[in-house]
């Protein structure tokens, strides 16, 4: 199995979008310091979709929020296109586990909040068109002016997806975006997400607990070891062609091999 390190040597640096080197995170606790992550190395190529799986509490959210700039880096480096990140910014779109929409705003206004920030020069009509385009893409053409608090969980998360894509980030960070949804809605939203992604090809890092979701969505599945001092344990490249269809993926022989590999890792 190739490790992330030696692949990286063979890649020229301008193919790498996101790079984590020797990342370390320590949380101070009343009983002394707790080392969540240590010596964590990971790179993500441009236009790559990776998923992260690992046991609960191993530090996935911690890692993702560090990439988002919402959580301080104890040691090591996170860089995007070669330059270190400084705090949060709209070059990284985040889709949170809970939709985190402003409930007092309409779907449109929620998406607009980010678009206004990123395209301050365009006129109002152009910005509205961007919002409408993405809201249409996630299947909310009829709910532009509904208050977020009046939308169902699934619809709210659709708005969350639209909001993240509409600011055209370089990297998309998703923390169990469908974890709170029932399995039917989850399948629908996976399709919505992957459809937009196929068009926009924004480098994406997604945390999931769902092995099937990981295989269906990603180019590589990154497995994290259990904490403390979690690092990358194993990486499984998923070789299915894109665009993928759920039916074809499920029918493919390799699917069960991949699945076995992942479950094997998680059970040990």
């Amino acid at each position, binding site marked *: 199995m190739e490790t992330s390190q030696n692949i990286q040597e063979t890649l020229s640096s301008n193919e790498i979008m996101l790079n984590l080197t020797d990342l370390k995170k320590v949380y101070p606790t009343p009983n002394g310091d707790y080392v969540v992550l240590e010596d964590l190395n990971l790179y993500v190529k441009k236009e790559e979709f990776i998923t992260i799986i690992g046991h609960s509490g191993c530090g996935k959210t911690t890692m993702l929020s560090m990439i988002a700039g919402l959580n301080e880096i104890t040691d090591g480096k996170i860089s995007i296109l070669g330059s270190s990140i400084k705090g949060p910014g709209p070059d990284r779109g985040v889709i949170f586990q809970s939709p985190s929409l*402003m409930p007092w705003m309409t779907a449109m206004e929620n998406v607009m909040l980010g678009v206004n920030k990123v395209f301050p020069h365009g006129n109002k009509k152009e910005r509205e068109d961007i919002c409408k385009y993405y809201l249409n893409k996630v299947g909310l053409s009829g709910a532009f002016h509904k208050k977020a608090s009046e939308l169902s969980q699934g619809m709210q998360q659709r708005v969350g997806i639209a909001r993240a894509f509409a600011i055209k980030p370089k990297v998309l960070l998703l923390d169990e975006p469908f974890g709170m949804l029932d399995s039917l809605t989850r399948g629908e939203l996976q399709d919505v997400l992957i459809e937009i992604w196929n068009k926009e090809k924004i480098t994406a890092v997604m945390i999931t607990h769902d092995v099937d979701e990981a295989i269906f969505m990603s180019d590589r599945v990154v497995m994290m070891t259990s904490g403390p001092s979690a690092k990358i344990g194993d990486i499984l490249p998923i070789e299915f062609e894109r665009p993928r269809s759920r039916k074809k993926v499920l029918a493919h022989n390799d699917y069960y091999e991949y699945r076995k590999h992942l479950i094997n890792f998680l059970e040990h």
Partner: protein
Amino acid sequence: MKDSLLRAFRFLGLGFLEPVVRLAAGEDSKKNVIQIFKKVLAPIASMILFLGIWYTGSKSLYNKEANYAIEKTRSERGDAESEKTRDCIASGDVSCQPNTLPSPKQVWNSFQLLLEDHRQISANKEAFIVKTSALNKKRLEQGKDPIVYTGRPSFVDQIKTSIKTVFAGFLLAFLFATPIGIIIGLSETLRNSFNWLIQILKPVSPVVWLLLVFMIVKTLTKDSTGDTSYIISFISVGLCSMWATLVNTAVGVSSVDKDYINVAKVLKLGTFQKIFKVILPAALPLIFTGLRITLSVAWMVLIAIELLAQSPGLGSFVWEEFQNGANDSNSKIIVAMFIIGFIGFLLDQIMLTIQKLISFDKGSDV
């Protein structure tokens, strides 16, 4: 039609009439009859019970006072005088009525009298204005102050004054406490540095606030001849009542859901946008709860403050009646008590309605 009527009723806080509307619209009668019983008849029954207890209570207090008076006369001036006293009380003569808790009927009569008195005074005032209008015009041309009506204010005038004072105080509290609460809420350093002051000042009694305001306003208005008691009382009301708004605003602003803050951070919103688009809307429900408490506290302390500051209003009405000790003073005080309670309830309903209108969280009914 029915649905919009129901919505309107619920909006106005008259939700208990819902089953009556439903029954009138010919809906499932058995269920609605039970609902009517629960929501309409039961409260009416409790009201009757309340009046009953009040009536018997006041009657027994009355008898006790009367017997005491009769016995006292007997021991001091003999049987013949005591018989006279008994007859006098029984005849209902005003001069010898026992002074105690008035009965519901007496209170109702006083209420009617107060309204009658108000009509009388309004009529006088109008007549006065008509009479003096020509004269005032002349005085105005000569550069003199017009003559104004200075007669006794009626009960309704007192109510109006009180409401005016409470709104002035509430407005002051609102204009003062919300901005400060927002600023304190935004900065942890400020919050820590002012916390002690807020915690110490919050429990200070209305009386002390009044005295403090009195000290300051008295000096500030040394050379003005106007009536400062009104200014003193509304500032005191504002100071007493603003703490709930201040604390709630600070808490609301400082405890905005972390998710929203993260969204604002990721989108890198500017400070202005972050405050006005994210933090304030998120804190609005708590701010409003604070304002609601402020208004009800303002109304509650107003009466005491008016009473102490000798400024016109319901408070001084109650105090004057108490000192006056006329035969119907007690029942007038009880009338004032009900009016005070009723207006307090109305003010709270108004705030609740506005809160429902602006709240994004339609489900909650705090």
